[in-house]
């Protein structure tokens, strides 16, 4: 009860803070007559946002980017889960592929983006692949760390009560791993947005990243800000969805102990 009311209080406080900051921003821009090309006012950003939606300009870009983010995220996570589970459960596989994965991990994925445009074209495929690759590694690492996090005492307990290897896996190791896996999924959800936008920056004909580039070229900075607002809303929603899923599927971790985004 009291916890709820205090979290409500916090929420009100942060909303008040946002309103104050926006008002200061607006005031500074007007008082010092700052050019909208340098820094648009919040009100002109909101106007641009309204125009983007009212004119319907944004929809094809929004759908394209959402498609890239979601499909890339799902594919990257599936690949991360499968490869991570194989590395954790099949020692021979770990010895075989792990060194290469570490080498690939140290490579900045964004630097490969131009190659992907050559290989997969200007269409959506190249962006989906980049997004999937960006999501793959945090999930992979979290799966491996997750399977290593099995409690030794609980492992002994399962053995003492006659659990088979399969039962140890299903009833202990996988649920134990979920805690860290969800932390990895949370990171991947935010990275997915970055992956899709970077892909579009490098070369695209549609998408919010493409829209940012074209609006920038035409010096429509309020428009750029408006698209940035849309992108951050997408990121927040992705993050909130993962948080919700984590709270539902790893309910035994109290909130204070829940994995925190960095």
């Amino acid at each position, binding site marked *: 009860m009291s916890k709820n009311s205090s979290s409500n209080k916090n929420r009100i406080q942060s909303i008040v803070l946002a309103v104050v900051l926006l008002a200061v921003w607006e005031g500074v821009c007007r008082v010092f007559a700052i050019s909208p090309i340098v820094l648009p006012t919040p009100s002109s950003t909101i106007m641009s946002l309204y125009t983007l939606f009212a004119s319907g300009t944004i929809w094809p870009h929004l759908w394209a980017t959402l498609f890239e983010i979601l499909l890339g995220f799902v594919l990257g996570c599936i690949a991360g889960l499968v490869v991570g589970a194989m590395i954790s459960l099949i020692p021979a596989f770990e010895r075989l592929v792990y060194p290469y994965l570490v080498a690939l991990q140290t490579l900045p994925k964004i630097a490969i983006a131009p190659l992907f445009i050559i290989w997969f074209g200007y269409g959506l495929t190249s962006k989906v692949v980049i997004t999937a690759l960006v999501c793959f590694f945090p999930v992979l690492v979290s799966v491996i760390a997750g399977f290593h996090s099995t409690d030794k005492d609980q492992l002994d307990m399962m053995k003492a009560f006659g659990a088979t290897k399969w039962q140890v896996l299903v009833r202990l190791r996988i*649920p134990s791993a979920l805690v860290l896996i969800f932390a990895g999924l949370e990171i991947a959800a935010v990275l997915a947005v970055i992956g899709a936008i970077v892909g579009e920056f490098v070369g695209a004909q549609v998408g919010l990243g493409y829209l940012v580039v074209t609006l920038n070229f035409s010096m429509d900075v309020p428009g750029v800000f408006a698209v940035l607002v849309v992108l951050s809303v997408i990121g927040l929603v992705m993050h909130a969805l993962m948080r919700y899923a984590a709270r539902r599927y790893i309910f035994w971790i109290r909130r204070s102990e829940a994995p925190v985004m960095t």
Partner: protein
Amino acid sequence: MIGSSAQLKNRDGERVVDASGKPALIRIVNLEKRFNTRSGETVNALTNVNLDIREGEFISVVGPSGCGKTTLLRILAGLEQATSGVAECAGAQITEPRPDVGVVFQQATLLPWNTVLENVMLPASLRNDKSEAVFTRARGLLAFMGLQDFAKKYPFELSGGMQQRVSICRALMREPRILLMDEPFGALDAMTREAMNMELMRVWSEEKKTVVFITHSIPEAVLLGDRVVVMSPRPGRISEVIDVDVGRPRSLQTMGTPRFGELCDHIRTIFGAQSMTATSL
């Protein structure tokens, strides 16, 4: 009672009978356990351990850390193999966890994603026994431990003492002949610990299990045990086995009786003598 001198073998040479005529349920002969450390040294965790445990007996094992008491219990639980020697249960060498043995660990080790009831039923469900009898037994055990209202709760909603009671229920689930307990109350505060001791004596008197109870508390060992096995470290070995000639039922008041004090003092003397020799070395 130590060693195999007082034992008699019957014609098939398997069942062992000690001097009192009761069959020894657990027989430990010349048990040795050596570990290799990372630096290449060999540690003698257990050396020349001999012990017979009769059916229905409550054995306390007390000793300082490093005396090998946990290793001994792990060998009895089938979680570890002895380097040499015999560890038998009901005439069969212990090589893997046995279905008629229940284990209680220092940590409650409940599965946090399962309810209290699911945790208690774990030993049965691991053997794919999902019968109505399992359900009834689990419910009965929880009621016996005063936890009937917590069946649908999750472990994180319970206090430490309650979690450990759930883990005792779990160990009793499949009606084991033997209960192995590794410092089960070590992580609890003193008050809860005393309450749990009383609880355990109640369980033992009603369920009549053979119990091997490991502790580093001398009063706890004397209060609970029929016999107290005193172990000492470097190398891990049995220094003495003491018969606790204090009548039952025992209560917390028993701890105030002169005989109880004498036994505790005696055990302290054993440890004291050891630390003296250790310093003189």
